């Protein structure tokens, strides 16, 4: 007995299946969007936090660090750095501001970005906001 | 084009009507179990067993898998048995 396996059916499955799952995905994303106010800490997004995000982006911090686990794995996770630094934006600012210009011999060191006081405050506030996102208790512990 | 030699005719109507009635009765039993508020491991496993039998009937008689010599009938049986076993195990674990 011959087997029936037609190209047109395979094609229909490709189009139908893709459309089906795209619609399902859209429905789930739509539901997620409507639930975000519960988790994304949006009440903490001030203008300063928004500026902080821009500072974060314009210095390519993600090129070494991870934020909520995404980014590079060369330097510590920063989604919880605010809590790791004892719930202190001052400690974050002090750390960033005190990086040596020429690095540390033989070791990894964060560059000195020469941030203005305003930018420094903003990026610290941004990290504080990030630590308030409810993300299913990740990372597993304070070390990130 | 496939010739109408009869090799394609593999399920007759009458058995399938029996299957249909069987499926209705089994579903009725399942529903009654719920209505009577029956619970517990043995009841659950019986209900599950009925569901797997129903699945096999659909596969064999409606999907036309009965009498297949290759792997395709086994695909459905495996599909019924493995989740069935996992569900059974999970329900035993609770007790």
């Amino acid at each position, binding site marked *: 007995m011959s087997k029936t396996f*037609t*190209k047109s059916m*395979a*094609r229909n*499955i*490709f189009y139908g*299946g893709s459309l*089906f*799952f795209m619609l*399902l*995905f859209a429905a*789930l*994303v739509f*539901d*997620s*969007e409507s639930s*975000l106010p519960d*988790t*994304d800490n*949006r009440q903490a*997004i001030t203008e300063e*936090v928004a500026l902080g*995000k821009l500072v974060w*982006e*314009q*210095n*390519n*911090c*993600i*090129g*070494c660090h991870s934020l*909520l*686990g*995404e*980014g*590079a*794995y*060369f*330097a510590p*996770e920063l989604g919880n750095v605010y809590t790791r630094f004892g719930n202190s934006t001052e400690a974050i600012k002090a750390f960033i501001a005190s990086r040596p*210009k*020429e*690095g*540390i011999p*033989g070791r*990894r*060191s964060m*560059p000195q970005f020469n941030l203005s006081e305003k930018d420094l405050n903003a990026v610290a506030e941004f990290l504080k*906001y*990030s630590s308030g*996102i*409810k*993300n*299913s208790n*990740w*990372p*597993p*512990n*304070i*070390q990130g | 084009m496939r010739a109408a030699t009869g090799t394609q005719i593999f399920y007759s109507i009458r058995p399938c009507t029996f299957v249909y009635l069987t499926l209705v009765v089994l579903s009725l039993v399942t529903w009654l179990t719920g209505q009577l508020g029956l619970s517990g491991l043995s009841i659950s496993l019986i209900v599950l067993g009925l569901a797997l039998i129903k699945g096999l009937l659909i596969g064999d008689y409606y999907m036309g898998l009965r009498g297949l010599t290759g792997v395709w009938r086994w695909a459905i049986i495996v599909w019924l048995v493995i989740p069935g076993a996992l569900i059974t195990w999970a329900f035993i674990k609770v007790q």
Partner: protein
Amino acid sequence: MQYQSQAVAKPYFIAAIGLFVGQILFGLIMGLQYVIGDFLFPEIPFNVARMVHTNLLIVWILFGFMGAAYYLVPEESECELYSPKLALLMFWVFLIAGALTILGYLLVPYATLAEMTGNSLLPTMGREFLEQPTITKIGIVIVALAFLFNLGMTMLKGRKTVITLVLFIGLVGLAVFFLFSFFNPDNLVRDKLYWWFVVHLWVEGVWELILGAILAFVLIKTTGVDREVIEKWLYVIIALALITGIIGTGHHFFWIGLPGYWQWWGSIFSALEPLPFFMMTVFAFNMVNQRRRNHPNQAAVLWALGTSVMAFLGAGVWGFMHTLAPVNYYTHGTQITAAHGHMAFYGAYAMIVLTIISYAMPMLRGRKAANSGKSQILEMWSFWLMTVSMVFITLFLTAAGVLQVYTQRYTDNPQPFMAVQERLELFYWMREAAGVVFLIGLIIYIISFFAGSNEPEQA
């Protein structure tokens, strides 16, 4: 080469290989920075090297895809390219924009680059893989539109085949999903949500269509198996890829502030993502076993088979390893992710571009079907050196990742990040050594283009 205009693929392929070399060099720099922290500091800090490494990867793969499209669409459509001039113009636009961007990364601090390019007007920079200045992103969109227009017009006037159709859908999807890179809300969770629309729906979505189409084309050409059979398989494989891959996006939504149900949806669907890759492996080997002729270009066949295997290992197996939410809870953002990323990108996308280059380059350089035996032997050597060293890079990073998870995450007494990194030093050194072997493989690959070029073709 059957059509004159296929020749425009050549500069694309050459640029791809050139940028590939750059990518590997910067990879080696980063690998060294992992163990000698102040290497090239502060001239080329790690974040700059990484940005160059990943952006070069994306750009050279895109060059490869475009070259592949320009090569195979005329041949499939059985007509000349709509406008070879436009293709050539876009080549230079893309190359110059890419080169300027990379130079910008290297020559000025990133913040200065952001300022120079007016990032604050429409902030899109500074997100992983999307570091390009907004103006470059707009350039990419323009190049993509011109490219798609050129291909579309060619396809319209010629024969329509499944391969060109699938390739075209994949490329359109690539362009469409890239548009999400312009969406960058202040809300970090939403930023990340739509960022994945670019990244995931590229590499685990539409790029797989491109991969499948190129692989199918090379298999039709090198095995002589009936087109009907290959196209059928292609449809089934890409259908499965999208069925599992679209909802599979959910495996990125576990820990970024999205609802908990993604842990289930994402785990279940992404656990099935290896299936299409597995089918691709079965498919490729099947077709080669059923071949109706022995194609003289054995190197291309090797690349095609290698792609199917390595894509399955890298994207399928290594992806599955850490895709389930309870596992991912501990492995998310560790060297395990890096290990998976390396093998998956090399196995799926780098290798498919090398496959089509291997198949097309001899014709583009005026040969009938294949390079000389000498050249092919060198190319096969480079295949094995690069592939095996990539396996080792992956294994060493995996080992580093496991140790990292154990000491930093999955323990009652978690160590700080930097303390853990020091304990991983040995693995990083071994990874760097494997990386050097990879570079040697790449050098031999380039030599293979010149060796034996005046000798006759392999029969």
